[in-house]
């Protein structure tokens, strides 16, 4: 048994490139799910899962509400809904107010995942131009999970991981090239 029950990635501007570099190198027999929350424009649905799917042998799909979360699967948050994780390890969607000008908000997913998975959660905050995800990482720490960020030096837009570094006691700062091994070793 690995150390991780769920790996949640949040990102905004400049994060797609990172995913496209990292996902192809993630082992296909992963023992946990990867959940991806990326800010994107409303209406761009289904493009992102297709794009990622072409780069990995893991199953990639856009989340459907009430779906049971399974290992070895990459889940992408749909645009224009907050993505929440329930205690029974299912997803739910929420159309409430934007948080940090964002829907989906990384904070909402990180926070609900933190309560559900506790110390068996790993979250990674990537490149981006606002502070979404920072409060979420605080919750992750509070519930005993692992908070990691993309090295701001390597980020196209450093603001998001930089804010996290300033305001949260981050466990690991990862360069893009180190991310695949980091993920694979959790399995």
């Amino acid at each position: 048994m690995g150390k991780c029950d769920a790996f949640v990635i949040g990102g905004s501007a400049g994060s797609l490139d990172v995913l496209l570099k990292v996902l192809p190198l993630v082992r296909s027999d992963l023992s946990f799910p990867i959940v991806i929350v990326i800010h994107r424009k409303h209406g761009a649905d289904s493009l992102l899962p297709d794009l990622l799917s072409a780069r990995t042998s893991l199953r990639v799909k856009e989340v459907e509400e009430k779906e049971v979360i399974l290992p070895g699967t990459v889940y992408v948050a749909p645009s224009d809904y907050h993505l929440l994780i329930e205690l029974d390890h299912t997803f739910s969607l929420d159309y409430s107010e934007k948080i940090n000008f964002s829907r989906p908000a990384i904070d909402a997913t990180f926070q609900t995942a933190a309560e559900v998975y506790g110390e068996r959660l790993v979250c990674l905050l990537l490149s981006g131009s606002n502070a979404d995800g920072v409060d979420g990482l605080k919750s992750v720490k509070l519930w005993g999970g692992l908070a990691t960020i993309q090295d701001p030096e390597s980020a196209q837009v450093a603001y998001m991981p930089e804010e996290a570094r300033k305001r949260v006691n981050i466990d690991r700062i990862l360069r893009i090239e180190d991310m695949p091994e980091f993920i694979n070793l959790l399995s």
Partner: protein
Amino acid sequence: MNDEQVELLLADLLEQYGYDFTGYSRASLKRRIIRLYSLDKALSFAEFRYRVNNDPDYFKRFVEQITVNVTEMFRDPVFFKTLRETVLPKLGTYPFIRIWLAGCSTGEEAYSMSILLKELNLLQKSLIYATDLNPTVLEKAAQGMFGLAQMKQYSENYILSGGTKDFSSYYTASYSLAKFDEELKRKIIFSTHNLVSDHSFNEFQLILCRNVLIYFDRDLQNKVLQLFDDSLDDLGYMALGTKETIDFSPITGNYKRLANHKIWRKVS
């Protein structure tokens, strides 16, 4: 606030007021409750709980705040385009059109629907029942006034939905508000209805319930879909939100989906 405290509050609501939220998905509900708790600067859980239980005005606020009331006019323009071009022309051949907008919140969709019907010359023979569990939002809805700042977005949505008129011809601007024409309201009946506990109250040709089922667990979703099925005429239409479906419900066999849309037609 922990999960046990959330359950205590839900039990209180059911016992004190007959409002049953126990079939709601917990993650969202809990976030809403915590948000209100901090917004209202509650001193302790005990104090918060006491207020909900003993102050009817605060109870109203509580229900309004823990349910999601985010909506807009002509939200998902493609959906309204389909109503305009496919669904309503079909229903237009009927002598009378009854529409149920379940979970109408502050009424933006009801007025959008009214505009569509008016442009298709169907408003005279239509009746829109717009319901919500929450009396406070219905009072707002009945006023027909929305923020002027939103009109730019709504106008864009309207055009994308196939509207060709000048959107501003439907309202009068007054300070920061846009007041929609009385004519649009004449065919809307705003009324409280709780999908969890209330029964069918009419037969409809079109039922819209968008972004409401996402807050319910599977059992409650199925129960509400059954209620819709009981309230829908044969060959009537049911419309759900972009991420909602009837696929996992027992009623699915009675319906045929309009390709690529979250609209189903009752076929048996």
